[in-house]
């Protein structure tokens, strides 16, 4: 079976080389997991042939939230305030539902200060990629525990976290996201396939990526370090992604590979590892996540997919043309309408 990851050709379907998909030079620490995630995102957007001008990159505050400056340099970016990127992204989509929105957040940004907005964004299911670069600490403020730190995890200074973690994927499945995945910044192939699938989904696609912080959380006793992930990552399946414009025939064996198609005709191939896994079952997903964390494993892969719920802007029954571009003749009611209302209050 052919894997369509990073083909050797130089231009994508729009005729662009990789350059427009790159951004400014990273200012993050060498070895930071976030840098690897950025690279995968660059490749994924290039590979899908995403139009750079159509993308809105939106983030909160944190090392992770800085990364929109390092990819898609031609796109509009918005580094907003800590924990509130979801509202900004939702607003942007209200103005223009044709934007392809990429939201980048951290575990502090999403699960600590921004938890409220995160939960409500899950409920609304706006169409965007919601990327959480999860390192279990506040990188930018120098290593304090975040709300995703595991119970008993050790900080660099030796403190032991006494509180239970918030699992952003569990919340996402529970409260309404329609594409939920977990991955690891070091798992190039899986992350790449998941990002391309997430970018092709018409709904809220939450991708929680364990992305180690080499400066503050990569030591013995950390549950978000490279070595911990090497030992504890438990992939649900092997994943391939076939974009809609690639109509190759794939043969796969029943019972070994599942094919899931997305709204735009793209396909995800899930190759069975130890157990078969059906991502359309919410209950199953939740159970497997609990089992994994009880067994000190980090479950990765496509956890949950729901293709039936409409995205937020669709539920609002707005005109097809983006609100941002409506002319005055459409947005300002006529003189007679005002006269009628004046009459009503007379």
């Amino acid at each position, binding site marked *: 079976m052919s894997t369509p990851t990073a083909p050797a050709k130089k231009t994508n379907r729009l005729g662009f080389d990789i350059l427009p998909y790159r951004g400014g030079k990273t200012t993050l620490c060498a070895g930071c997991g976030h840098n690897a995630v950025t690279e995968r995102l660059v490749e994924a957007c290039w590979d899908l042939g995403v139009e750079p001008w159509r993308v809105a990159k939106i983030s909160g505050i944190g090392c992770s939230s800085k990364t929109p400056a390092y990819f898609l340099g031609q796109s509009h970016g918005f580094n907003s305030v800590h924990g509130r990127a979801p509202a900004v992204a939702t607003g942007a989509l*209200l103005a223009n539902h044709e934007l392809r929105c990429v939201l980048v957040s951290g575990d502090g940004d999403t699960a600590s200060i921004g938890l409220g907005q995160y939960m409500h964004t899950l409920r609304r299911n706006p169409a965007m990629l919601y990327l959480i670069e999860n390192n279990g600490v506040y990188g930018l403020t120098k290593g304090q525990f975040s709300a995703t730190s595991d119970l008993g995890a050790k900080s660099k200074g030796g403190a032991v976290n006494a509180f239970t973690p918030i699992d952003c994927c569990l919340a996402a499945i529970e409260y309404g996201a329609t594409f939920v995945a977990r991955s690891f910044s070091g798992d190039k192939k899986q992350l790449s396939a998941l990002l391309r699938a997430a970018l092709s989904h018409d709904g809220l696609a939450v991708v929680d990526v364990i992305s180690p912080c080499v400066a503050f959380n990569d030591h013995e006793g950390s549950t978000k370090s490279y070595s911990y992930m090497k030992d504890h990552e438990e992939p649900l399946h092997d994943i391939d992604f076939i974009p809609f414009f690639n109509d190759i025939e794939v043969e796969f064996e029943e019972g070994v590979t599942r094919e899931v198609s997305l709204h735009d005709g793209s396909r995800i191939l899930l190759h069975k590892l130890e157990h078969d896994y059906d991502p359309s079952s919410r209950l199953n997903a939740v159970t497997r996540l609990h089992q994994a964390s009880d067994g000190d494993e980090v479950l990765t892969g496509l956890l949950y997919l729901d293709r039936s719920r409409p995205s937020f802007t669709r539920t609002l029954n707005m005109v097809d043309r983006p609100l941002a571009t409506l002319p005055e003749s459409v947005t300002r009611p006529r003189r007679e309408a*005002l006269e009628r209302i004046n009459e009503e209050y007379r």
Partner: protein
Amino acid sequence: MHATPVVNDFSIHVATANGSGSQTANSVLMRSIFQMGVPVSGKNLFPSNIAGLPTWFTIRASRKGYIGRKKEIDLLIAMNPETAREDVMALDAGAAVVYDEPLALAGLRDDLVFYAVPFDKLVTGVCPEPKLRKLVRNMIYTGVAAHLLGIEIDEVRKALVKQFGERKKKTAEMNWQAVLAGQSYASENLPKADPLKVERMDANQGRLIIDGNTAAALGCVFAGATVLTWYPITPSSSLAEAMIDFLGRLRQDPETGKATYAVVQAEDELAAAGMVLGAGWAGARAMTCTSGPGISLMSEFLGLGYFAEIPGVFIDVQRVGPSTGLPTRTMQGDTLTNAIVSHGDTRHPLYFPSNPEECFSMATEAFNLAEKFQTPVFVNLDLDLGMNNWMSDPFEYPELPVDRGKVLSTEDLERLGGFSRYLDVDGDGVPYRTLPGTPHDKAGYFTRGTGHDEHARYSEKAEDWIANMDRLSRKFESIRGAIPAPEVRFNPSARVGVVCCGTSRYAMEEACDQLREELGLETSSLRLKAYPFTDSLNEFIKAHDRVYVIDQNRDAQLLALMKLDMDPSLLLNLRSVRYYGGLPLDARTVSGEIARQEGIQ
């Protein structure tokens, strides 16, 4: 006892319990006086409660057109057993009282005129169905008052029909019977013993009755607002609700029935503000409405909006704070806050509407200002203006076209070969922007709340920071020339000036008349319509020996805001008049305080 009649110059105070359905009876009474052509205002003084606590409604009729709250009560309608005694004891001598007979109030004082009405007995006659009696009982006092005051009964009928609309004919009829029962009881049993009288005038030709929130909502719809985000809070909820109603009626695509707008009830005010900024950034005409507690939550985003230069309209229907304060009472509580809200150096333009016409026109203007200057803009209403019914001239269709400001299109970028987001090309401090989704490889730029240079690149350099902040100041100066000038009543023989904003105008205008008529003190007055202040304010202050600044808050916030902008040599001339009890400001409070400070009491 028939003293000289007091014609078209009195206040009625109706005391009931919250949730007892008195609103309709009060509205009909107010509207009948309005239809008699007499200037009138109505104010609901209600508790933060759904049912049970005492509530008052005051109606003021004034041939001279004074529509601020009148401190003295001339006619009390005492329906609430809980407050009746207290209400009666607080009256000035000579006032009249209509009361529910079993309350037996007549013995309380001998310097008042009492009218006892057996409401329960009368309502039984009107309404055989016991369950419905509560709903029409209050309408009886409308009939009693109409008779006592000489309001033409046809006008009451018309007001009632207007109130219930075409659809609720049966309910209207039952209420009409209650009015008639009150009227005929009064005519047969209550000999007129007070001097109050309504006589037909012709002051209200063409006028409407509407509350400020509805007017502002309508203004937003006619401004072409496309995104409304909100989180419910008194006294701003009714603005959002009115707007949702108007949008549903006026802003559907005629062919598809689809909406040309989006409304989101957000999870809190932080999210509401964030959505406004996201939408404004991406090219919508976005707005939210809230009150003080919501502003506190929006504070971080408002600074981002100022610094990242994103348009958005923020309507603040102010209530009494700090904290939850008196949530159903009025205050100019955020005058200073809104001008500078958020950390660091921030400045926001404010509009100060004083009546429904201005709620409409300023809400409309605010969207143009926000997009022209790429910044959050406040419209400061208060509870009194937002939630009470006011007489209003009909709304005028916006003259100015929708102005989307300096937005570059693909063609512009093609022609220019690119752009620098924060470069002051035109010297007015206002840079050019592009919208996300503009198909051009030079359209994109990076928006951030961190330091940036003219090309929107991250920068921590002191020179870049200062240059950017100075440009933002230049932009604010440009705004100064684009907002409405104050309304000035210049009196060449006055050495004393009075300054106010928003709803304080009613008390100010009446107080100036009181000072002249009763104490011989001539005054000029100036009503601010917007912040930043224009030069005419400086001129006004220079032209007077002393200038009194009226504030509906404890800390003299308008005065403080003036001080921030003002030539220090002028500060010595400024005095403060403050009221912060939560009731709409009345003229006596203002004239009394000015007289006291002038030493002429």
